[in-house]
């Protein structure tokens, strides 16, 4: 009896099936009072499903949930709420055009004669925000505040409802390094208060930093629960992936060839402000090398790539691909000229989410004579082609070629995009944050693919915000700051600290990145 009481929440032998896939297969998770418990697993391992079961969004086929040793039934998020369970979703559930305060009280509004009573709510929110160091402006509109602050609003929502079991679903995916540190501090604060935290992630560093224990899922099955003390990032990765993982990319020295992409004095306007987002950038991307654009988010990387890929009109400068001027070419022309593009936002650009996997796999080439005759799609060819790609790139999905892409896990969606773009056999592969939000296994795979493309003599232009990735993968680094190239580096002769100084704009080489233009 005593043992059972140690656990505030127990999920015992949970099984949840979806058509064609067992998302959770006899998974057990026990959360102690006042601990930070990490839930680790690759994309598609079933972490989100398990948490959705706990939060009442899904009903499990088998298994029981206990709170304080008592069996409970959670039919919907309101039940979860009554049991003191709160969740910060990976994609925030906020009303954009409401204020921070209105979002926090939404659903539990106090009213008097049918009118909202904002004053007391405001007092409570301010007190909570003070107590836990969650800085927010209660009267700001959600659409105007940063992602970090939106997350604090989500956390305040849980606290406002006096939840004591807090679920964080991939909370750091959208945060800057500083914001991540703050969040870790806040989580430690909750722990001190006696709240219990479930923390879904696949970032080893974060688990090592805050978690007490960790439950690992792999392909829907519970692999085990371990104390973090005594574990290393390597041993955790191994548990998660099932085999040893190389956290370091293994690659031979680059043999750069001729310039494939020549960018000269490129100017791209900004959608956000009146100034130009890219201000006179010049560089070459050469065959057989991975050229990396590093920089803090929002320094013109997105617009630079939009300009190169043709998604945004450039207002100055020239772009040449394999000697051909493509400055004002249509997107299709650029694609034909040998450009592949793994876009930053796979949901917005990379995929037609309600199309099937096979249709998405031919998105860049359905018009080629191989796939159509006189405008009629050759369905048999499309099927064969997509089955081959699915096999070659190990794209996992519930129903193979006819799976609706929206239902696939993020990692497999990304794999599908990478399969499609690499299979085009491009001269230039543009990859923007290709590993964002992915787990170690998928990251390793994608890194290998990029290196393989380089070794096959392709020019790879990589944009990444993760310095570790930049250092590991690139053969040459350009740092972008406020739309200009402020330095060019050889990853073997620099370090993260030096890059950081340039990324922050505290220093620049020569006048406006002179070396970079060479």
């Amino acid at each position: 009896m005593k043992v059972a009481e140690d656990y505030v929440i127990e999920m015992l032998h949970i099984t949840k099936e979806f058509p064609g896939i067992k998302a959770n297969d006899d998974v057990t998770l026990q959360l102690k009072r006042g601990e930070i418990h990490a839930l680790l697993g690759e994309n598609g391992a079933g972490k989100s499903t398990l948490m959705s079961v706990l939060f009442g969004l899904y009903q499990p086929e088998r298994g029981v949930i206990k709170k304080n040793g008592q069996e409970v039934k959670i039919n919907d998020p309101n039940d979860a709420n009554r049991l003191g369970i709160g969740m910060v979703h990976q994609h925030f559930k906020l009303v954009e055009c409401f204020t921070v305060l209105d979002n926090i009280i939404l659903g539990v509004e106090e009213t008097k004669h049918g009118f909202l009573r904002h004053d007391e709510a405001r007092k409570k929110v301010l007190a909570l925000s003070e107590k836990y160091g969650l800085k927010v402006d209660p009267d700001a509109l959600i659409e105007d505040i940063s992602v970090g602050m939106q997350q604090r609003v989500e956390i305040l929502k849980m606290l406002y409802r006096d939840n004591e079991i807090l679920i964080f679903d991939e909370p750091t995916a959208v945060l800057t390094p500083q914001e991540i540190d703050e969040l870790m501090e806040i989580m430690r604060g909750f722990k001190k208060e006696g709240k219990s935290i479930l923390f879904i992630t696949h970032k080893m560093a974060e688990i090592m930093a805050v978690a007490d224990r960790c439950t690992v899922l792999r392909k829907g099955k519970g692999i085990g629960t371990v104390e973090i003390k005594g574990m290393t990032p390597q041993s955790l990765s191994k548990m998660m992936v099932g085999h040893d993982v190389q956290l370091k990319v293994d690659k031979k020295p680059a043999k750069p060839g001729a310039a494939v992409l020549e960018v000269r004095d490129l100017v791209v306007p900004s959608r956000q402000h009146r100034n130009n987002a890219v201000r006179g950038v010049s560089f070459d991307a050469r065959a057989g090398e991975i050229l990396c654009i590093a920089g803090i988010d929002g320094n013109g990387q997105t617009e630079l790539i939009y300009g190169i890929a043709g998604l945004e009109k450039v207002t100055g400068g020239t772009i040449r691909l394999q000697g051909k001027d493509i400055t004002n070419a249509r997107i299709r022309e650029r694609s034909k000229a040998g450009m592949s593009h793994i876009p930053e936002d796979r949901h917005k650009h990379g995929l037609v989410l309600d199309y099937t996997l096979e249709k998405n796999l031919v998105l860049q080439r359905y018009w080629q004579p191989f796939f159509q005759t006189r405008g009629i799609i050759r369905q048999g060819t499309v099927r064969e082609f997509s089955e081959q790609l699915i096999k070659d790139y190990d794209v996992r999905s519930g129903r193979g070629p006819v799976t609706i892409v929206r239902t696939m896990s993020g990692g497999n969606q990304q794999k599908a995009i990478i399969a499609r773009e690499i299979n085009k056999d491009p001269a230039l592969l543009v990859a923007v944050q290709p590993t964002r939000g992915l787990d170690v296994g998928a990251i390793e795979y994608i890194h290998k693919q990029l290196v393989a493309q380089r070794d096959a003599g392709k020019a790879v232009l990589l944009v990444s915000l993760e310095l570790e990735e930049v250092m590991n993968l690139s053969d040459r680094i350009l740092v972008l700051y406020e739309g200009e190239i402020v330095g060019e580096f050889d990853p073997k002769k620099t370090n993260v600290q030096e890059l950081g100084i340039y990324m922050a704009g505290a220093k620049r080489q020569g006048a406006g990145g002179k070396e970079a233009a060479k």
Partner: protein
Amino acid sequence: MKKRKPLAENAALISLLASIMSILIGLLIGFIVLLIVNPGAAVEGMAAMLGTGFSSPDKFGKVLYQAAPLLLCGLSVGFAFQTGLFNIGASGQYTIGAFFALYGAIVFQLPWWACLLLAMVGGAFWGIFPGLFKAFFNVNEVITSIMFNWIAMYLVNLLIANTPMILASAWGATNSDRTAALAAANPGAILPQGYILARLFGGSTWINISIVIAILAAIVIWFVLVKTTFGYELKAVGNSKEAARYAGINANRCVIQSMVIAGALAGLAGGLYYLAGTVQYVLEKSVLAMGFNGIPVALLANSNPLGTIFSALFVSYIQVGGSSMQPNFSSESVDIIISVIIYLAAFALLMRHIIVKLLAKKKERRAKA
């Protein structure tokens, strides 16, 4: 041996079941409304509504005749839906199509097929404006096309009233508030009955080849959407304009093309209806309902072009049945009942959800047992 799929996974069957169940519920509630309006004649009225369509070849001919323009308007709305546009302007395109057809028939004395082509051109012309505004200025197509419905109606009124030759009074009749009867003005513009159809429907004055043309159009649209690269592009734009752009698809061009095709379909509907020779275009004071009736037809079929054939027949059947319920029921209460039935029939999606849930529960219980 082929393994039978369990019901829970057979999406097509569930959809069909859901449609049938929602239609039944609609009829039930329609019957309750009948009871409230006129209890004495309710049973008789319901029987008239459900039986009339099949009661004689003539009535069934009327069902087919009215189904053709409904089907095309449904196709117009459904096609635009599939490409991410809400074409609420089918009515205006239909009106312009009708005018072009009648102008061709009466003023230019063209044969029926040329008039139908003109009707399509007219509808397409009217559809291009919402498309252009949407593509280049990002003006919501709903607003533009509603405005264009009214513009179409008054413009056609104006043009007809000011074209003496097109009026009935120029062709031996006395009234000048409507277009000439085609039998007097240009018998060659009246749609042929078709050899087989004429045999099948003996004496029906309603039957002509319009239903065949409409069904052919549905098959063509289905083929375009499902089998061609053009349809692939249109639907990609409809699902995600940004992803389509990324893939090198000219999204703006697709929006315009889609509206042009949707307009041509609605225009053809107008041509088919008024070239039958049984109706004359009367100067209107409100936007024609036919285009709007295309919306439930499309919804009922979940925008599937082939499904539209059946939903159009259903709506037409109910309408023909309804018109035979007078004088026991006023035309207004008949319209209410028809609306109730169609409205509930559009609940198919909800029904589908319920069926799936019920099946899941049953499975769960069986798993426990």
